[in-house]
């Protein structure tokens, strides 16, 4: 590494300082989500409902994709002056929110269905289709509501205080998505158990 010059180290230190805070927040959110996953009763749920562990990464990652796209759209709309940083009956804002709600719910149901399908095709033990889809539907509904409200409040609030929403959306979405994603997945399991 003989080309590690003084200026490289100095500039790298500047990038490090600029990013470490956001990563620390993301780490805290991820540790919260991880401790929900690592709780005894959640580990039991993974054993009790084969397919739940299979759908976990897809469920968590799609939160980022659906609400990251909503955040990017709102952020671009704000920059272009197409939408105002207020919770109001604006047709563009309503369309964007409704579309992300439809996207979030459809993908959640699709993931539950796919998890059951993969295990069934491979002839492995799987929880019932309605159990897996029930869990992802309940979890998908609850995450959508919380993510949409949280995203709008933070992006609008930040924008009014002069913070570029482009710098807020990514970390908010991954952190909130992971935290609420696992909590609501767990609530989904409880709802399905109660209905049994």
């Amino acid at each position: 590494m003989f080309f590690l010059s003084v200026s490289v180290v100095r500039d790298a230190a500047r990038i490090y300082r600029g990013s470490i805070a956001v990563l620390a927040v993301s780490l805290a959110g991820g540790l919260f989500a991880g401790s929900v996953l690592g709780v005894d009763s959640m580990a039991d749920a993974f054993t009790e409902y084969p397919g739940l562990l299979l759908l976990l990464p897809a469920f968590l990652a799609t939160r980022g994709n659906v609400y990251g796209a909503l955040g990017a759209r709102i952020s671009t709309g704000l920059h272009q002056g197409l939408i105002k940083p207020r919770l109001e009956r604006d047709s563009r804002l309503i369309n964007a929110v409704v579309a992300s709600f439809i996207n979030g719910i459809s993908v959640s149901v699709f993931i539950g269905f796919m998890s059951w399908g993969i295990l069934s095709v491979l002839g492995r033990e799987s929880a019932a289709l309605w159990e897996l889809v029930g869990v992802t539907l309940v979890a998908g509904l609850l995450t959508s509501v919380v993510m949409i409200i949280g995203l709008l409040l933070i992006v609008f609030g930040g924008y009014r205080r002069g913070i570029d929403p482009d710098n807020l959306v990514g970390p908010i979405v991954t952190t909130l998505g992971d935290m609420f994603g696992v909590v609501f997945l767990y609530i989904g399991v409880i709802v399905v158990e109660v209905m049994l």
Partner: protein
Amino acid sequence: MGNSGDAVGGSVGSWSVRAIVGTMIPVLAVLSVLEMGSGFVLHELEQTFLGRPTLLVLVPVMIAMGGNLGSILSARLSTRLHLGTLSFSPRDPVIMTNVVAVLALAATVFTALGFFAYGLTLVPVVGVGGGMTLRETVLVSVVSGMALAVVAVVLSISATYASYRLGLDPDDTTIPVVTNLCDILGVVILAVVSLLVL
């Protein structure tokens, strides 16, 4: 992640529910099929993970952090590319600087993750994690985290280079591709490292 597939224009047309759902659903469907790949790895190693719940504590951070590191790097490289101050050589000071920063960030975050994840197992009453020593937890976290950081670096640079050669805007291509691939590979790397180390 993020702005995949939304060609946001000024017209109300591109803000219609039908347009947004129509462009996003195929992308989301493909991505969730790919994500099932890392889910399948988790499912196959169910005994390893459920026998050592501390590994489950590491999973969300491994999923999120690869994407975070990849997006920090690709966002910076893509801005440099737009400004025309990037050359694709391993000795390019911009690339070196960013790579050094990302590796240092990864070393900090994944060392902290190891200690915190183990610390959580010591909390009484709630019963989080377990089945691993402090040494094992930090070792698995740091080895898989650094492997993931190297993968994120290689993917970010290759994807930025590919979008430059193909004349695509890296903001619309590189960042979503890199973050999603890193999401998928994070769990796979964690699983492989756990099998090797434990």
